[in-house]
């Protein structure tokens, strides 16, 4: 290398790159030493000057060192979606009645149960009241009302998580020429687990409703659909 030219990396960095594998191995060995004694077989060795025995390692060290340094993975501060922290509006607490604004159930008033790991809200109609099943909703498509149910005593099944609600992908059978025009769509079915959980959760939510001071009107309220009348502006209204 010419003495006048600039080095792309400092000498220290280059040395570090060159010795990276050595260093890694050294670190690994150090750890291994800490954890357990070296794995291997002890074999007796003949000869006076060879010591009486030697250890044959169970795993051989690589015969070659790589000729090229492999790119090192940089440490990134970015987190995948899974690691994101999901905030929840303070107005939404378990038992809050929410008005759903988007999707199949828009306009319905539903009961909020809990926030799932993906940040989505787990809600239920209850299904027997307004037809909204156990379901995930994004909090941006929801108006939180001041009306709250006391659902502290409700026990939700532990299997109600994000995977539970994910669409199950089914492999498509390869198409034959014969059934090219035949509809191969399968009818949507509700899993027996969901049916079971729906009954279980609804029962508890309805019990909580019966304990609300306005329990006589509460189911009617959940049944009713939200809409804006004349001269009602949502940004000016209290919910």
């Amino acid at each position: 290398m010419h003495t006048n030219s600039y080095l792309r990396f400092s000498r220290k960095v280059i040395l570090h790159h060159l010795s990276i594998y050595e260093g890694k191995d050294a670190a690994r060995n150090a750890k291994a030493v800490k954890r357990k004694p070296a794995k291997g077989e002890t074999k007796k060795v003949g000869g006076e000057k060879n010591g009486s025995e030697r250890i044959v390692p169970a795993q051989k060290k690589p015969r070659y060192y790589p000729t090229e340094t492999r790119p090192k993975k940089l440490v990134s501060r970015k987190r995948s979606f899974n690691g994101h922290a999901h905030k929840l509006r303070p107005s939404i607490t378990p038992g809050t009645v929410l008005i759903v604004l988007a999707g199949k159930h828009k306009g319905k008033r539903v009961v909020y149960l809990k926030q799932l790991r993906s940040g989505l809200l787990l809600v239920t109609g209850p299904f027997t009241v307004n037809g909204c099943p156990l379901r995930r909703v994004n909090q941006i498509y929801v108006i939180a009302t001041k009306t709250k149910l006391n659902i502290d005593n409700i026990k939700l099944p532990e299997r109600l998580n994000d995977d539970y609600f994910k669409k199950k992908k089914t492999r498509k059978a390869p198409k034959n020429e014969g059934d090219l025009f035949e509809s191969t769509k399968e009818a949507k079915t509700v899993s027996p687990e969901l049916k079971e959980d729906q009954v279980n959760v609804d029962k508890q939510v309805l019990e909580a409703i019966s304990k609300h001071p306005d329990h006589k009107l509460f189911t009617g309220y959940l049944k009713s659909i939200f809409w804006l009348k004349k001269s009602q502006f949502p940004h000016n209204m209290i919910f």
Partner: protein
Amino acid sequence: MVKLDTYKLYDRVVEVGRVVFIAYGPDRGKLAVIVDIIDQNRALIDGPASGVVRKEIGYKAINLTRFKLPIQKGICTKALKKVWAREKMEEKWAGTAWAKKLDSRQKREAMSDFDRFKVLKAKQARTRLINEEFNKLKASADSSKTSKKSKKAKK
């Protein structure tokens, strides 16, 4: 020349002692009294009982109420407070349709979603009762009419 009697044309005029409702500005929604008239555009007001500090205000910012306090021009705040209490202005104001309307509007604005639903249901129940009674009366009226007609037919 005919002299116009303003008191006959209007029952509320800008004058010393006139109780006013402040329509906008920082003291919006409060009651005060005109203490002095500065010029054609501004008056000096004071509202010791409602938390309005003595200040000048444009006529556009105030609405005149039908109440007038018997005070002298430029009366001091302390004395005004006494007159206000003696005349029971708070009670009088609360009794007006104006104040009631404001009150009900405030209540309506403070209602939650569930409250609105409850009001809806209460109104439906009221209408149902009224309709039931109305239909009963109507039915009895109709039956009496028909009976008269049938009598006539018999004759």
